[in-house]
């Protein structure tokens, strides 16, 4: 947190606002605690590289989306607010997709199919609805960054193990020689992503007992 303290804009990084970034990393993680965005966590974690690009794209969409929704929060007619949110996220996703195609073509070839999936990522609509509609632009931006990072680290951990154990590679480079380790095809299939997410949830709850719901 030291890099945060050196910044001068005190009110924005008040203790309460800093929690907007730190909470989603652990105790309020969008994937493991709120169980949102699971579908994309399964789909794009076969390779680490895809997970990184997906995380950056989600960060861009959520950051701008949260800020736009927050800026318009006193203008949006409550009855069509979900439609407005959908239009904002869909437009942003299209723009991200177009920009990728124009400037990082090779990357867009890799993740083109998945970028469209961001529209259906429940984390985005969830943050619009739960936070941006009721808060100012600054905190909304922090909330977006926090949740994107919380989403990103789960994705990266899952993708790390799936690529490593599923194909013996990391970032496309062979790290375990093929004759030492027979790649486990099961890791590449979606169910193993779910198992890995489950393991993360298990570790998280055993460390922090407050997260365990009592039924």
């Amino acid at each position, binding site marked *: 947190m030291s890099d945060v303290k050196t910044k001068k804009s005190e009110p924005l990084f008040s203790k309460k606002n800093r929690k907007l970034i730190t909470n989603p990393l652990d105790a309020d993680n969008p994937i493991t605690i709120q169980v949102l965005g699971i579908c994309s966590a399964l789909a794009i974690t076969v390779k680490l590289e*895809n997970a990184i690009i997906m995380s950056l794209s989600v960060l861009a969409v959520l950051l701008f989306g949260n800020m736009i929704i927050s800026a318009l929060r006193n203008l*949006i*007619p409550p009855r069509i607010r979900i439609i407005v949110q959908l*239009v904002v996220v869909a437009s942003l996703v299209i723009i991200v997709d*177009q920009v990728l*195609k124009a400037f990082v073509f090779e990357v867009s070839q890799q993740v083109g199919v998945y970028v469209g999936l961001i529209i259906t990522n429940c984390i985005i609509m969830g943050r619009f609805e739960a936070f941006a509609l009721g808060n100012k632009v600054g905190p909304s931006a922090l909330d977006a960054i926090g949740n994107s990072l919380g989403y990103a680290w789960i994705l990266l951990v899952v993708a790390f193990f799936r690529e490593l154990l599923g*194909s013996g590679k990391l970032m496309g480079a062979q790290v375990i020689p093929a004759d030492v380790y027979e790649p486990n095809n099961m890791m*590449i299939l979606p169910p193993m992503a779910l198992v890995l997410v489950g393991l993360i949830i298990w570790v998280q709850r055993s460390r922090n007992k407050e997260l365990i719901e009592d039924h």
Partner: protein
Amino acid sequence: MAINRESNAYTFIFAIIMVAVVGAVLSIAATSLKPFQDANLKMNKQKDMLASIGIEVDNMKDAPDEFQKFFTQSILLDAKGNVVDETAKENLAGDKDKAFKLDIKKQYKAWKGAQMKKEDMLYPLFVVNKDGEKLYVIPMIGTGLWGPVWGFMSLKEDAKTINGTSFGHQGETPGLGAEITTEPFESQFKGKTFSYTGPEDFQTVKVVKAGKEQDNQVAGIAGGTITSVGVDEMIDRTMKVYTQYFANNK
């Protein structure tokens, strides 16, 4: 200024303005980025074509220069293997190069969707001079498991021996079907031969189940059977058309 955000009039006005603004923003973004995207698509096509003759371009931006070095001619064929159009070296990949500009993916979709007859389809063929050796490059397209698969195949001067391939796909399963683009799969094609005197007696280079491959066959991807079958079908169907041209021009 008290706005009643619950009123119908406000809701409608807001929706109309929103749609207009979003529509304008998106169309501006799409039109202003289009030239960049088209240039990328063209460079990417050149890069893939180069890959099929064994020239790997690391940076896509170098593709046009390398392309000019090796490609000497483009020919557009009809479904019977007759020459429809030819482009000489100077105009290759330019606006008048009908063979290069032809979108075979679009044509394939139109045919699959029954909007186009098989005999109306056109087939591009590219001629390469690589260090004095004459090569042919043939673009092809087919269907994998989740979407289209495509590729370029280069043949040696006898138009029967495979010199190299470069496959691509839209969304095959990573680690399974998507492996068709990797070196271990593609390198198997090298040196394999088609045999034919025309389309009737055409013997393809088959992609078969991994482990079951015999001479002149290629091992498919384990766990990517549908994709492998798609590649096999694509090669067979496409090559049959070109054999007509090669049989008459050999």
